[in-house]
């Protein structure tokens, strides 16, 4: 009798699961999710339009902080601050960009009310260099960035 019970149990355990409906669901879901998947996250930097350099008057009051992007250096200048030149080797010089961040953080500590900065670029300054300087300004607590053409 015991043997018969074991045999019945074996029959029950060996029953196959019906996985075809689940497979069908997966086959439909995966292409749908593939179509709507985003693998690169895009962010935005909101800002004001640039001037052409000729008609833009620097503000009469305030710090009027400006970062000039030159091929060999970043130049930080403004009212009531000592101009600082931060040398850099090339456009991907991260150490120079970090030194720029430190300089901007120092200025932000001395002038906590200032949130604006002008980024003055040359005609041939690359876009990623400008974005890197924007990032450092924002990180230093100066998110109001405007672009301007250099002399």
């Amino acid at each position, binding site marked *: 009798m015991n043997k018969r019970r074991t045999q019945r149990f074996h029959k029950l355990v060996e029953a*196959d699961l019906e996985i075809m409906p689940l497979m069908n669901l997966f086959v439909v879901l995966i292409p749908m*999710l*593939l179509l709507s998947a985003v693998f690169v*996250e895009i*962010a935005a*930097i909101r800002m004001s339009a*640039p001037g052409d350099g000729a008609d833009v008057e620097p503000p009469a009051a305030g710090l009027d902080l400006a970062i000039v992007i030159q091929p060999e250096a970043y130049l930080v200048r403004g009212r009531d601050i000592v101009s600082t030149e931060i040398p850099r080797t090339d456009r991907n010089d991260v150490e120079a960009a970090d030194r720029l961040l430190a300089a901007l953080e120092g200025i932000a500590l001395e002038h906590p009310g200032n949130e604006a900065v002008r980024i003055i670029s040359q*005609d041939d300054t690359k*876009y990623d260099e400008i*974005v890197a300087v924007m990032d450092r300004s924002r990180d230093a607590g100066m998110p109001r960035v405007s672009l301007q053409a250099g002399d």
Partner: protein
Amino acid sequence: MFGRRRSRTRKKFGPAPLKMTSMMDILVVLLLFLIKSFVADGQMTPAAGVQLPASSSEELPDESIVVAVFDDAILVGEERVASITEELSESDLRIDGLADRLIELYDQKMTLAARRGIVDPDPGSVTIQGDRDIEFEILQKVMYTVGEGGFDQISLAVIRTT
């Protein structure tokens, strides 16, 4: 005799069952990964050929008109409106092809808003998807032209770094 033995062997073993467990494992992992990267609200994707610069900005882009600037082309949506080489050879800040298309889109938006009875409508913003290697000269011209087209709010699209 030979056929009889073969059919008996087939009866004894039956059809070989497919091993589905490993395939199901793969599908479950794939499904979870895809659900994680699923975006329901139609997030902006970069135009083909544009290598956006990386940034630490965390602001999400709005649904807006997209101007892509890369290689030698300036595109509004999918439509090529100007050539970078030609525009760089001119001293004028205004890019005529881009300005004409943006003014057209601005007028369309204003007409639609007027039909709906919206007073003082917001034209929305323009998102610039610029390649990381474009020069400031062309970026400045594009931004100036976007302003000329009637759009005051400008966003620069970047790839978010963590």
